[in-house]
């Protein structure tokens, strides 16, 4: 069988960016060469005959651009059953009519969205609120390329909230912070229930990604007699400073906020 004539027109010297595909895993599909082109773009016989006047059977744009479902089906034919794409249909990105090629460049040896150093650029193009949060004083090392958005989220969809990889938010957090997984003898119940009760994952103006700072944050849930119930203001920062305000405030003593395994640790002080 004759090889498709793709490379007759799309020569290396005219379109080197297309030819990068032959340095990548996609350049080898269906035995490589022009067969690799038709593996994704379809047989495209009319395009082969009439060149610029008719689009390939499946075009990923920008000039023509096939229907999103057709574009995605071309990719999913190989990729659907692997790599966490089972929940693509009905996912947020699918509902937005996004196509694989909106994020991925299948022609390059190093798809920017697959590289942890550059992946976030693609995500933040649309997710502007998160772009602002990632620059906050307290944050994860996303800007440095040591954590990627896709370390926590599955952009291809999942059945969990916010398309997380893990089955719950806490499991997502514990996958890097195993020391907080427990179980502990003395648990701090909101911790085991939902890390987001106190922390915000994308960035915060407060240390340790906290949603509010102590002692106010602690007093939103703790109002016992004596010192936990008292308002602590600026007067605690003058003269001999008040231990409930300055430094780590409540955590000057109750430092084991994620739980304690000490037999005398019921108050999370050790």
């Amino acid at each position, binding site marked *: 069988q004759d090889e498709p004539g793709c490379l007759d027109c799309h020569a290396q010297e005219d379109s080197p960016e297309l030819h990068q595909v032959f340095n990548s*895993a996609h*350049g080898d599909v269906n035995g490589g060469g022009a067969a690799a082109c038709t593996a994704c773009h379809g047989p495209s016989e009319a395009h082969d005959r009439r060149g610029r006047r008719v689009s390939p059977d499946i075009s990923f744009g920008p000039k023509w*651009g096939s229907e999103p479902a057709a574009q995605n089906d071309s990719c999913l034919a190989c990729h659907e059953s*692997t790599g966490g794409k*089972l*929940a693509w*249909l*009905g996912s947020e990105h699918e*509902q937005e*009519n996004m196509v694989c090629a909106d994020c991925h*460049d299948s022609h390059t*040896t190093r798809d920017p969205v697959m590289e942890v*150093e*550059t992946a976030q650029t693609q995500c933040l193009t649309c997710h*502007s609120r998160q*772009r*602002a949060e990632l620059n*906050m004083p307290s944050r994860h090392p996303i800007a440095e390329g*040591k954590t990627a958005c896709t370390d926590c989220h599955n952009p291809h969809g999942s*059945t969990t909230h916010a398309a997380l990889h893990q*089955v*719950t938010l806490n*499991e997502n957090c*514990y996958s890097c912070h*195993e*020391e*907080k*997984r*427990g*179980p*502990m*003898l003395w648990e701090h119940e*909101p911790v085991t229930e939902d890390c987001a*009760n106190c922390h915000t994952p994308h960035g915060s*103006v407060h240390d340790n990604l906290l*949603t509010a700072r102590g002692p*106010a944050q602690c007093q939103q*849930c703790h*109002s016992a*007699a*004596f010192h936990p*119930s*008292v*308002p*602590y203001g*600026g007067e605690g*920062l003058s003269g*001999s*400073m008040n231990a409930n305000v300055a*430094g780590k*405030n409540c955590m000057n*003593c*109750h*430092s084991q906020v994620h739980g304690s*395994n*000490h037999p*005398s640790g*019921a108050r999370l*002080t*050790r």
Partner: protein
Amino acid sequence: QDKAEPEEEAIYRPLQVTALASPDVLLSEYRGTVELGLGYTSDDNFMFGRYNGLQEDGATLIGNLNWQDFSGDSNWRVTLSDLGLDTREGEVTWQNKNAFKLSLGFDSQQQVNNNSGATPFRGSGTLTLPDEWVYGSTTGDFSELQASLNYFDQEITRDKLFANLSTRLGDRWHLSGGLSYEQKEGTGDISGAMYTDAASGDAAYLPMDIDYETTEFDIGLSYAATGLNLEARLDYSDFNNQDDILIWENPYRSRTPDSMGGMSLAPDNDQLQGRITGQYIITPTARLQFDGSYAVASQDNDYLAYSVNPNAVVTTPLPRESFDGEAQTGTLNAKLWLRPINKLDVELFYKGRERDYDNPRDGYTYIRGDGLSQPRDELTVYNTSHHYQSQIIGLETTWRLPKRTRFTFEYEYEKEERENAAVEETEEDRVVLGLRAQPLDGLTARLEFGYANRAADTYNWDQRYYALLDVELINATPDSQRYINHPELSQYHLSNRERTHGKLDLSWLPTDNWLLNFNMLLQADDYDKSYLGLRDAAWERYHLSASYTAVKDVTATLYGGFDRYETEQMGRAFRGGAEKNAFEIYQPLPQASDPDRDWQLDAGNDAITVGANIQWMVADDLKIEADYSYVDTEGDQTFKTYGAADLNPEDLPTVETTLHHLNASGTWHMRKDLSFKLQYQYYNYESNDWALEGVALDSIDNVLTFGAYNPDEDIHYVGVSALYRWQ
């Protein structure tokens, strides 16, 4: 878009001008690229270098390698980056057609925390004070403090080794697995408290050795057929902390002679999880997706003694030698997707989660601190089971209307059940209405409105107290100690709440080169039945961006945003009396029932973010990139009181942070196989957080801190490197 298509049948597509960050052809068409050079950081720091390995002044090596071969039956790739820094990483991947893929790699990460502090403590594991240390009852008595200081770095590194393998087992089966080992080491910090009774705690910040190991193993088998995709995975994670306890010498020994403190450290634990994910294609317009998991986390560390202080004589033995604890977490998420007619999608979903904290319940003699022998029988406390269950059922419909308009309606109902919590059951209804329209090719608008109403059953404020003790002990406990929280307090994650939110997103493509976007989010939480605790929370977020792409030579983005988060919370300052029930009259009348003792705290956080970046191919052989960020944040806390003469809290000082960060580089392709790169970064950050501002080691009478400073950094970084490519 195909403009010849009738508009009502045109397909909605997200607007974008920015093509993918176009890969540099020169860097991609070669089999290998190596970059070598030198970088120089102008000053020691901890904010600029927090995660990037550039926390120390001086020169560092720039070293990156990318080498691959996709030309044969099998292909391979090697990447190494940041070779001269503590954040280096690398991976070798070998793939044989579609048969299998193997990758081996390492990843080093680093977190630098505030390095400006000091401590008189020496050693690790057991922290001691120098021989010349002068003990005291307060930090002011530590006359040899300054002479005893030892400056140390709070830095934590993570070094991970990993191997991943995936292979096809015939047309339908696919096997994948991974093994990783991570070591987390360094110095963190924790505060240790020394109590003799509840009213006289002394504390000291302690440098804490971190020596964690985590080993993880996972294996997954997937099956793909025309109508059914399944993936079953088994994950095992083992966490091992080399240290069980941090022992520290008590600097306040004048008050509590012969005392020694002991902090428990994170216990070893492991977790085994099984998970099945899949979808069943019932018909082309009906699919069932499901994801179920069951995990058992175990922890069986040997217990520490009640106290490391030999003078804290405890005659009651520990009820058991170790916790022998288990937490079982099960989840089930399922979604039925239907497209009954072409313009309508319907999703029915269920999400269930249960955490069963199924552990032996025992009484533990409660010793407040390691200061003195002080056990009292009535202060025996019981560990408590915190079983948690959440179930959500819901419906989401999407109706496609003419002119690329889509209307969505979502409803979900959640029921949460807890054991031994102040609220044992909450129910929440949530409704979201959304509209997305693209009336013109270059204009997209999205509007969303949501309302949620959470209802809690009776707030049993004393439930946690009764769960902590048994009946006999409760009766033996003085009334004044029968409390955990004030009866009027509602913990915000348990209480009644009305939540409304609105979102607006406008994108406009006025020309092929420009994309303008405005994004707004407003959200308000009203804890309408809460008197004490969090009563209101509100978010406002406005973000603007403008992106410009001129053919392939110039791409630029300018963005700005304003974020505000405000809360209102109430408290009541009270002491003494019979707090067991604030609504009964005891003699004397307790402060707990006096609304004059109320106080209110209004907190607000504002953040302004401005940024710009540009990628400019100035000439065929010269590329310039620049990225600038400006972030300005403010945090305020103001108080209000309701009449009690002894309550006069001052507003807390405003906390401000300011960041300017410029990251610019220029790459000159001198030859096809040789380029030179010049990189410059300017980083300026300052903060005036009152938690650190003016807080010296001995500023608090009963807390010995590190005396760390707020960051005030002005850092320049210059890097020069050469990139060589080969075929």
